[in-house]
């Protein structure tokens, strides 16, 4: 452990990031600029999330990383190893045992408690970016609460697709003030943004940190006649039989065979251990690969 400072970043950098986090928590949904550091991974792999995690981790923490809900993908495994090596913290795949969870594109199915922190990796923090390319203008729009443009995007969706087709990174209004991009989580997860845990968002390339404190009101934007609807595949998990979890669709052969399974691997495994079996699943066995 003499090779690195605890959790890779130097203490001055962590102080700077913590200040940004505290400011973000004080102004829910507001994008706080911070001096993002060069990290030993490419932009787009979670440099923002890693810096936020590094700033909040303590030696007593238990760390969990998920990527699209899964604990065992390249991105999740490498970030988990990174903190095992540089911070020596305990790691887990179980949502309930983790004190800090770094995530890409999902919120765990299991509700978080008020002693847990979830850190999101954010590619583009500005929800208005694709409609208004000027940063000066978007900052002014946030400052003056001019959010009509956000609805123009939803209008375009309905006029082109007959419904609000935005399925991920669905814009939300936080505590009646700031419109925020919840990172590319599926809109199925949007209702979970009102939670008891602390939610921190880090965008490394764009150098922004924002946050949602516990028990904050988060409303998904919509029209009166086209209300917000969280969507998922109309199916139950084929492995654990869960009817209410967010599903991945998997093509299993070249004759049209497919299966749906929970995107949250920990949730699925826990249910299978409890004896739940889905339509194509087999009873859970220890060490079954």
């Amino acid at each position, binding site marked *: 452990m003499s090779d690195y400072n605890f959790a890779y970043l130097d203490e001055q950098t962590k102080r700077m990031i913590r200040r940004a986090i505290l400011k973000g928590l004080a102004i829910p949904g507001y994008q706080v600029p911070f001096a993002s550091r060069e990290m030993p991974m490419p932009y787009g792999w979670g440099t923002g999330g890693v810096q936020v995690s590094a700033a909040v981790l303590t030696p007593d923490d238990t760390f969990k990383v998920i990527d699209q809900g899964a604990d065992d993908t390249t991105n999740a495994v490498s970030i988990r190893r990174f903190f095992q090596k540089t911070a020596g913290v305990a790691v887990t795949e179980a949502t309930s045992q983790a004190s800090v969870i770094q995530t890409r594109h999902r919120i765990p199915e299991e509700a978080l408690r008020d002693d847990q922190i979830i850190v999101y990796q954010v590619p583009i923090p500005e929800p208005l970016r694709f*409609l208004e390319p000027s940063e000066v203008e978007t900052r002014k729009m946030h400052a003056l609460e*001019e959010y*009509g*443009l956000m*609805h*123009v995007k939803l*209008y375009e969706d309905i*006029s*082109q697709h007959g419904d609000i087709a935005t399925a991920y990174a669905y814009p939300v209004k936080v505590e009646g003030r700031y419109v925020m991009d919840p990172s590319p989580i599926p809109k199925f997860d949007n209702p979970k943004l009102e939670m008891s845990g602390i939610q921190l968002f880090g965008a490394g390339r764009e150098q922004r940190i924002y946050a949602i404190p516990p028990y904050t009101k988060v409303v998904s934007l919509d029209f009166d006649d086209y209300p917000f609807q969280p969507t998922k595949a109309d199916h139950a998990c084929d492995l654990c039989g869960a009817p209410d979890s967010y599903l991945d669709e998997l093509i299993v052969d070249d004759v049209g065979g497919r299966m749906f399974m929970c995107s949250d691997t920990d949730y699925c495994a826990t249910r299978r251990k409890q004896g739940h079996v889905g339509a194509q699943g087999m009873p859970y066995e220890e060490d079954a690969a």
Partner: protein
Amino acid sequence: MTPLLQVENIAKFYGARIGCTDVSFDLYPGEVMGIVGESGSGKSTLLNCLAGHMTPDRGAVRFDTRAEGLRDTITMSEPERRMLGRTDWAFVHQHARDGLRMNVSAGGNVGERLMAVNARHYGDIRAEAIDWLGRVEITEDRIDDRPTAFSGGMQQRLQIARNLVTRPRLVFMDEPTGGLDVSVQARLLDLLRGLVREMNLSAIIVTHDLAVVRLLADRLMVMKDGHVIETGLTDQVLDDPQHAYTQLLVSSVLQV
């Protein structure tokens, strides 16, 4: 009767050079004022100062707000000024692409100002957009097309619909017919004249085209080198110009 817009001694300098200076006038509800002059005479600078796009160095621009009567728009707070900019004011740019969102459909362009003042019912917004596209002679089946698929004249008409949908009381127009060919210009002018009369709009039109002001404007202001050199009723100024420069301007128009 209170004027809708009261302009007092507006001056704008670019360093030592004069943008425009000593401009004062009153604009009453329903009145259309033309500002003519050659390129570089300060007419666009003046328009931008009046519309809040630029801060003048001197003077006051008082607008008769619905809630509080005459207020100086230069000293009012930026949120208030921007609110005016998307409710009671409208700004028609010379180039439609400056005033439109080119990657948003025609319906979305018209609906944006409605959504900016908290319209949240898709059906209502769309119905209103269809109504306004109809008023500027764009057929309903083009509502989901992007402005990039429109001709120059259609883009300009779309820009006008997008601006008038919140029923503003004052419209600023910067060369609204510039860059359009004459037959399209004639149609656009016809349309504008109809809308101005029908909605009892007040407008300030900046142009170098005397035919445009002849058709649309009640009053005329002639500018040269940042100064107003002649004002009066449009027909009076054009038929009996007093200032040597105005005489030159009027006689420079090509007769077919």
